[in-house]
């Protein structure tokens, strides 16, 4: 054994990760070649294709569910990094700058750290409830993603009661917070759980009432339909017809997501992170994953309801057509024949050399290798840009996804900005604001909208 263990011990950490991966890749390649040679894999592919074709709705649902589950991880990482960096900027600090360029890998490292920590269960907790609480919180956040329309055709399930489903499932996270708070056997946790219950129930009323105006204007509760109704220029967005509704909804959404200035449920400076006090390791991580995913989801919902979802602010196509810039997207690569092979083989080399040439000629102090690396990176950037442009022109969903994500991250930024700027409110201010200001304002908005809808109908 020692003949094997000694070289292993000399490897660096990266080597210990890469070596098994290389072995795995070689083994998989061999298996694949064997499968293709014996005809097993083509048969399996055909069988799988027919299976997928016959059960399209089920397959679609499974794919959508897996996709939203997978997309929560990078989303949470990006938002955590954004928050660290922006709050550092607001505080006049540098923020994370050690791991990766400009610290971009910091939140990944946080994820690994949380995974590697001991998963500790304190004495006296109610074990099943304590274990299930993070799961409930995380799933309630993830399941709401299922009805969010990302782009034309890119929606998990297009329900006609999508909005109600959203609020119903999203409201379940308070159950998880209560479970965590109670089962932790700790008075700070219990206070956090109770605060969560009081806060979420109080703010659910203005949250839902603030949207009723949009539902009345749209005449539907399907989020996809609501987006379709806002097509056109940015003047068709519901925020211009429902400014008060948007304000109410935004404030209530901040409270619903337990974000500053309404983050009394965790309030680390007064009740030491509240419901999460007794949690450690990945269970603690799940709570915070859920929080950042919820920030993304609430921003996405604001975008969908009030800011036109995946609709572009201005439809540029008529302008482009007028200028004679309309592009024929029917590219047929098969037409190139053997030229395609040459393009694939020589294109990167020639492109890299061509892009490296000016650097090598203009900077006498740069070595050939350095200018080659820079040329290679530039070539990659150019190709990525070209592919992105091609996709954007050919597929409506790519442009839609771009606009949806861009608008959503604007609101994510506002959430982060508020956390960096505003002080936390007191619990009585929180409750008083919900019941004395937001709720009457939401009712007023409801009546004014109803009146406007009736008046407009009568005039027509």
């Amino acid at each position, binding site marked *: 054994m020692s003949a094997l263990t000694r070289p292993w011990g000399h490897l660096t950490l990266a080597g210990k990760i890469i070596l098994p991966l290389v072995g795995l890749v070689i083994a998989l390649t061999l298996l694949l070649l064997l499968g293709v040679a014996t005809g097993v894999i083509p048969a399996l592919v055909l*069988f799988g294709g027919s299976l997928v074709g016959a059960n399209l709705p089920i397959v679609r649902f499974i794919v959508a569910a897996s996709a939203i589950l997978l997309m929560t991880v990078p989303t949470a990482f990006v938002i955590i990094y954004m928050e660290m960096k922006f709050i550092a900027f607001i505080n006049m600090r540098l923020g994370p700058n050690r791991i990766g360029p400009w610290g971009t890998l910091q939140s990944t490292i946080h994820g690994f750290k949380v995974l590697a920590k001991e998963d500790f269960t304190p004495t006296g907790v109610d074990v099943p*409830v304590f274990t299930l609480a993070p799961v409930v919180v995380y799933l309630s956040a993830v399941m709401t993603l299922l009805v969010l329309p990302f782009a034309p055709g890119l929606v998990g399930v297009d329900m006609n009661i999508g909005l109600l489903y959203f*609020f119903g499932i999203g*409201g379940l996270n308070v*159950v998880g917070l209560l479970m965590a708070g*109670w089962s932790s056997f700790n008075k700070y946790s219990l206070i956090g759980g*109770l605060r969560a219950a009081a806060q979420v129930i109080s703010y659910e009323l203005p949250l839902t009432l603030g949207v009723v105006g949009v539902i009345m204007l749209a005449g539907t509760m399907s989020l996809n339909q609501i987006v379709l109704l806002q097509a056109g220029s940015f003047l068709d967005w519901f925020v211009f017809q429902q400014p008060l509704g948007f304000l109410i909804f935004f404030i209530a959404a901040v409270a619903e997501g337990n974000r500053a200035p309404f983050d009394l449920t965790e309030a680390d400076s007064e009740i030491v992170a509240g419901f999460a006090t007794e949690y450690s390791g990945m269970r603690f991580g799940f709570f915070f994953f859920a929080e950042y995913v919820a920030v993304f989801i609430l921003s996405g919902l604001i975008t969908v309801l009030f800011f036109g979802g995946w609709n572009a602010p201005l439809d540029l196509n008529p302008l482009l057509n007028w200028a004679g810039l309309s592009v024929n997207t029917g590219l047929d690569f098969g037409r190139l024949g053997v030229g395609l092979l040459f393009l694939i083989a020589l294109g990167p080399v020639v492109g890299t050399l061509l892009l490296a040439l000016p650097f090598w000629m203009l900077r006498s102090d740069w070595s050939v290798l350095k200018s080659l690396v820079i040329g290679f990176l530039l070539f990659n950037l150019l190709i990525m840009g070209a592919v992105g442009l091609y996709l954007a022109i050919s597929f409506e969903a790519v442009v839609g996804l771009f606009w949806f994500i861009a608008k959503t991250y604007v609101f994510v930024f506002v959430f982060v900005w508020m956390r960096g700027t505003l002080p936390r409110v007191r619990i009585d201010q929180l409750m008083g604001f919900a019941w004395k200001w937001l709720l009457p304002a939401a009712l007023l908005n409801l009546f004014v909208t109803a009146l406007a809808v009736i008046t407009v109908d009568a005039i027509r």
Partner: protein
Amino acid sequence: MSLPETVPFLGWAWDDLLFLFFAGALLGTGLMVVIGRNIIRSGLWMICCFGALAGLYVLLGAPLIAAAQVLIYIGAISVLVLFAVMLTQSKSGPVGLVFHHQAWAGALAALGIGILVAVVVAGTAWPLAETARTPSPTEELALLLFRDYVLPLEVVSVLLLAAVIGGVFLAKREREPEETIVPAEPARERMPAPAPAVGTRELTP
């Protein structure tokens, strides 16, 4: 190759299988609500019970009612019940639940109700609905609620409002001076939640 029309080996429709699943979950969780010794766990089982009921509503073609069930019964009512229990439970409170003192009476009452339900169900003819299930019942429900049955709806609203006002009145009533054990601090009077009592449960090894 698609999924078979019926459940393999059993010959039931898939809907029936789902119904059995949800009905079983409903009965099981309902039983867990009343036989548990821990009142918070009973509340959590009640949430599962409501969830199973929402599943049944979806199966019956009423997704709107299912969503309302999740939104109101789970998201608001159960959470309020749990909230109240967590606030009021204290070490001096009763360890055993009310059900445990009245187990025999409760069992007899349950048996009686069960027999009654069985007799009624067996004695009623259940005709199939004539009209097909509508895919979007939201508008029809709205028309029924706000046009045909608007008066009963308003009466129920007034009743609920009266109940809310009565609850606030009872909770805010001035106490007798000898009953007040802890002198109320003026600054804290507006805080909605008094300090919750923790340490209600025994430490389980």
